[in-house]
């Protein structure tokens, strides 16, 4: 019974993946689509093997800028979120600015960053940071704003200060929101890093794709895409697992058995 449930969980998604690649390969073969428009999976795989070292180097670089930018936004986002959630004045004064800032498409900021810092690592890190800190701020602030008033009453009736209420229930209460935002934020940081590399980079998967397409190395462009997808999924998965591990209580024992 249990074995069968496991089986049912894993097989369908894998089957869909395999089927998608098979259909892709067949379409390319049957309609005889030229490689410079749409290479089949086999050609992409060949390109991947051929350029393995370059791909590995650039993927590491993209991962590095993503994670540095993401680390910055975790610190800044957590701090801002706690400040916004703690104080009504900070919330009222800061929130409109944050919303306005978040509505600017980040690709439009990259040229500004390039003027300031030149082409390379810093614009990529900063773009990753700028694109990913907002969801963290919003989630942490939401966790604090939705604090149950009864919990606050219980603590206040014990003589707890606002600071104690914040430490004892505010922060633990907002942690599930925080961790939920991390998996969104890390994929956004990844997007930001790749955007910056594509617009104004000299290394990274985004840059590699731009230069490959300039040289009509179309299979390499696709290999870059597949690598990006895999990295995005991996980053998401890592933070989804961390979330489940650290805030199991918020899932009401679905992951922690009684």
């Amino acid at each position, binding site marked *: 019974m249990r074995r069968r449930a496991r089986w049912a969980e894993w097989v369908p998604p894998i089957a869909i993946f395999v089927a998608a690649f098979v259909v892709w390969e067949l379409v390319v073969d049957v309609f005889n689509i030229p490689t410079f428009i749409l290479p089949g999976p086999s050609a992409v795989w060949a390109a991947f093997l051929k350029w393995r070292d370059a791909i590995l180097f650039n993927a590491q670089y993209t991962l590095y800028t993503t994670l540095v930018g993401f680390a910055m936004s975790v610190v800044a986002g957590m701090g801002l979120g706690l400040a916004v959630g703690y104080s009504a004045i900070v919330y009222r004064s800061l929130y409109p600015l944050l919303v306005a800032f978040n509505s600017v498409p980040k690709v439009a900021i990259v040229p500004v960053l390039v003027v300031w810092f030149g082409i390379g690592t810093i614009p990529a890190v900063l773009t990753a940071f700028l694109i990913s800190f907002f969801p963290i701020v919003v989630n942490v602030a939401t966790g604090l704003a939705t604090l149950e008033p*009864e919990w606050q009453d219980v603590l*206040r009736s014990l*003589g707890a200060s606002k600071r104690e209420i914040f430490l*004892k229930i505010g922060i*633990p209460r907002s942690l599930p929101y925080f961790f939920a935002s991390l998996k969104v934020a890390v994929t956004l940081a990844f997007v930001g890093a790749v955007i910056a590399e594509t617009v104004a980079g000299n290394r990274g998967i985004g840059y590699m794709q731009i230069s490959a397409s300039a040289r009509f190395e179309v299979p390499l462009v696709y290999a870059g895409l597949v690598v990006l997808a895999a990295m995005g999924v991996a980053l998401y998965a890592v933070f989804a697992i961390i979330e489940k591990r650290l805030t199991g209580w*918020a899932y*009401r024992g679905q992951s*922690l058995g*009684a």
Partner: protein
Amino acid sequence: MTLEYPHEGETVRAIEDVTLSVPRGAFVVVAGPSGCGKTTLLKSLAGLLLPTRGTVSVGSVPVRGPLKNVGMAFQNPILLPWRKIMDNVLLPLEIVAPHKKRFHRERKAYVSQARELLASVGLEGFGDRHPWQVSGGQHQRASLCRALIHQPELLLLDEPFGALDAFTREELWQVLQGLWLQRRFTVFLVTHDLREAIFLADEVYVMSPRPGRVIYQTPVPLRRPRTLEDTFSAAFTDTYHEIRRRIGEVIAR
């Protein structure tokens, strides 16, 4: 005292000219239909709300802000889901003055105190569970322990058994009575359950719907410890009928 609060541009008078005094160590129950300002009254006793007119004093000191050493429990027992039952019970000790400083040093002693308290309400060995792993009645038992662990002189209970089934509720009446007989803190309990009120109280105050006022007050002439058998005695049913009649009169008007 009178307490008003603004609601959508209007002033709502939640309680009006309520005067009552609770002797130290007494068990007082305020009973009444929902919306009669019972919870408001309870919160103003804790200093969480301040009266519009009049004063609230605890131990002859006027209440001007949240009291520092009150135990509270509510209808939904609101244990913190990220803490195990034991850590939930210990929470007040991390906040209330004399214990706060000693807490880390003397954690072991406090834990054994809490374990004893849990055992006395029938939660022996439940300390390591998370709140979602226990039943509603066990939740409420733990909530009682949390309200009592720091040995408050005043215990405020807001329909603590309202969400439980009848059997569990009656069992917890006896648990609460037992704890009270043993420790003799002052209890102020609000409920809409008249049987609960009579079973537990030294003195029952009955409140009318909004604006809440005290319409009737009666001592309960039953000896302690009371048993469920007592709820079928003549004294119990007479008190019950009288209270019910008074509420009926006010609602009919």
